[in-house]
Every structure is written in C-alpha cells, then in structure tokens.
C-alpha cells in the first residue's frame, strides 16, 4: 500500500502492522507486572549496553530491552537486516517518545484539575499535537 503525496512516497504498511498487532492483543496487554523482572530468561542475545558486560560494568544506556525492540522491528516484512546501533537508537528514541507523550498528556490532566493521567488525556494529546498524528486510529 503506497501512496504518493507531494512527491514523497509514503508506505502505509507500518500502519497495517500496527493495526494487526493491536487488534490481536499483542500490544499493550497487561503483562504480569513482575516488578522489573519482566524479561524472559533466555534473552541472551546481544542486548548491547543493556546489561553490564563481563568486561566490567558500563552503565546501562537503554532502559528498554533491545531484544524486544528488535522483535518488534522484525514485524516489518520489508526489513532485512538491522545493525545493533540502529536497534539501540530506536530503543532510545522510544524512551524519549514515552517521556514526551506522558508530559504532553499531563497538560490535559492538569487542565482538568486532575493528578492522575487518564486515557482521555492521551487521546487529547494525540489529537492536538502534530507529531502524534501517526497514532491516530492505531490504539485500542
């Protein structure tokens, strides 16, 4: 599914993938919140700076597990190979995204004189903020 807008080609495939994954319940289902110990054991892959290496601990640079990020990336049939750095950068960007959307949604909670962020605050932020337009219609 490719559309051409103003000379640039947009593939909407990621949107279809997102829709499929959200509908199937693969995204956003409440996992058992095992307070931090959530990563399945056996994730021995190159998690990059995720864990302290035997070479002697350098602090973890990414909070999100690179293996999980990579698994998501692999959902894209167009993707052949991804360097470890690219996975790391996407992980980092995702953290920044989470921070940003949480802060932007908070504004709406505060407008409603609430101290608890609610789903509708997210929806408002998504509607109002251009950068979040890609989320429209993708969440449950």
């Amino acid at each position: 599914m490719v559309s051409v807008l103003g000379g640039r080609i947009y593939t909407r495939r990621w949107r279809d993938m997102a829709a499929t994954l959200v509908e199937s319940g693969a995204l956003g289902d409440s996992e058992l919140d095992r307070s931090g110990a959530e990563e399945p054991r056996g994730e021995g892959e190159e998690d990059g700076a995720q864990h302290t290496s035997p070479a002697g601990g350098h602090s973890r640079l990414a909070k999100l597990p690179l293996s999980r990020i990579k698994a998501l990336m692999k959902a894209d049939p167009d993707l052949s190979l991804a360097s470890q750095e690219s996975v790391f950068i996407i992980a980092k960007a995702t953290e920044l995204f989470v921070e940003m959307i949480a802060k932007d949604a908070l504004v709406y909670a505060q407008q409603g004189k609430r101290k608890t962020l609610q789903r509708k605050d997210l929806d408002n932020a998504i509607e109002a903020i251009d950068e979040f337009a890609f989320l429209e219609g993708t969440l449950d």
Partner: protein
Amino acid sequence: MAERPEDLNLPNAVITRIIKEALPDGVNVSKEARRAISQAASVFVLYATSCANSFAMKAKRKTLNAGDVMSAMEEMEFERFLPPLRDALEAYKKGQKGKKEASEQKKKDKEKKNGTEEHDKSREEEEEEEEHMEEEDGENEGEEEDVEN
C-alpha cells in the same frame, strides 16, 4: 516469526518507570493510560522502523544503520530527539569499543594460557559478532539479525 504475540509488548515495568521519571512527583497514571502509552510506544517503533528502512532502501543498503534512524526521526518530525540521540549513540559506541577490546584481550590471554588457537575457534563465532559492531557505514557484516523474509 517465532515470538509469541505477548513478547512484542514493551515491558510494563520499564514503561511505567520511564513515565514516572518524566512526570512530577505526586502525579499518578491510570492503568488504561499506561497501556495506551505502551501501545503507542510499540507503534512508534514500527513507524520509525518503516521510515528508517525506506532511507536504507533508497541508499540501496540491506542493513538499517543508525544514520537511517536519525533521518527517520527528522522525517517523523521528531528533530528534538536528535541531540540526545547523538549523545547516546556516542556513549554506546564507546561502550561497545570497550567491550570489543576487552573480549580481544580475553582472547589473547586465553591463547597464552592454552597455547593453541584451535580452542578459540568456537569462541570466535561469538566474538565475531562483537568485532564488527562499529562498522556502520554501508553494509554491516557483523551482527545483523537476519529477518526471515
């Protein structure tokens, strides 16, 4: 894909921590809001990957690299992310370099100990991945994850 669907979630505890650290003390987040943010984050990964991949494909490369992701961020109008991402990438590269040097040193030490090189052949494969990590320009033969397609 061998992953079970639930493996595609980003870990709740981590998402929650990131949210909490971004917001002032005393602010709470409802479960539904947290879930929505987690979903949004996953969608973000998909969108970013797709965008970055189109840059790689345009450059006729099969391997996505960090530069593609940076270009994608601009394309997606998240330029504000670029400075912290660049810093993080620098730190990451340094960390990886340290690891590589350490594992090479380990190898050397081991060779001295064993006096043979054969022993290390099996380890070489493991370390092979790490050795090529910094080669980011163009094709990266090192650690690529071969995505079945």
